[in-house]
């Protein structure tokens, strides 16, 4: 509110601090995930995209389900965006691998089957993410845990 504007010196100091933090992250990324094979976040990214696609198709096919699967589609899209952004940042060599969109799955046979299929895949994403968050690098652990937690909550909304 009535805090005085930062002095030029103060701003420069803050910028220097950011530069140091930035390079520390780059080092952590290189150590934490190697440069061989797929990034560890590619599997949760694919799961998020598949869930978003299934929730979208199910909402269109079964209007009675739309109110419950709409939030699943938007949350899983947000997860996919955040995970893809992190893979592109840490592993520019995998940018092509994470660029491919997911084709729409066939609509499930019934509204109940659609809810059950989503509940199962959200539960699997919750469990796999809970494991990954224990062994991932610190700066990734929070993101992976938040995604796993949202999946746990979303599965609960479909029971």
């Amino acid at each position, binding site marked *: 509110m009535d805090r005085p504007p930062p002095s030029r010196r103060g701003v420069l100091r803050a910028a220097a601090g950011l530069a140091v933090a930035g390079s520390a992250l780059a080092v952590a990324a290189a150590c934490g995930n190697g440069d061989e094979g797929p990034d560890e976040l590619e599997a949760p990214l694919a799961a998020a995209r598949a869930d978003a696609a299934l929730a979208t198709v199910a909402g269109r096919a079964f209007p009675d389900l739309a109110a419950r699967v709409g*939030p699943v589609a*938007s*949350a899983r899209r*947000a*997860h996919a965006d*955040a995970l893809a952004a992190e893979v592109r940042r840490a592993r520019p060599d995998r940018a092509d691998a994470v660029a491919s969109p997911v084709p729409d799955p066939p609509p499930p046979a019934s509204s109940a089957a659609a809810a059950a299929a989503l509940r199962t895949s959200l539960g699997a994403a*919750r469990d796999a993410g*809970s494991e990954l*968050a*224990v*062994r991932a690098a*610190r*700066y990734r*652990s*929070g*993101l992976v*845990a*938040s*995604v*796993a*937690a*949202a999946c*746990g*909550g*979303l599965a*609960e*909304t479909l029971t």
Partner: protein
Amino acid sequence: MAGPLDDTDTRSAVQAVLGAEHAAIWSAGLATAYLPAGEQTALADAALAHRERRDALVALCEAAGVAPAPAAAAYATPRPVTDAASAAALLAVAEDDTAVGWRAVLERTDDPELRRTGVAAVVSAATVGVRWRGLAGTQPLVASFPGMR
């Protein structure tokens, strides 16, 4: 021997989430008076989970020779609690606060046991949060990134 609380950054995150767990336990105690009979078992389960995490955090502090953050006698609620809906809204806030605290711990430790407890806590906050938000009548029932400030 190196312990998970040797780092000051980790230590303050652990103390902060211990404070959030104390507040969640207090909130559950207050909510008992307002929630309908059908919600009391879920509330007791949630309160037990918070007490277990509090006890684990206190034990962790004591093993490291760190004085654990004490509970306050009472907490200022963001909104007055007068009925089941407002009590459920308080419980949702308390769960969100523990999720934020645990996510901060996850980003400040490599200790597998502490990580495991922390992930389970963030997942549990989002899961039980669905019940409290439903009862409070608030949307969305699930945040896209629980624990993110």
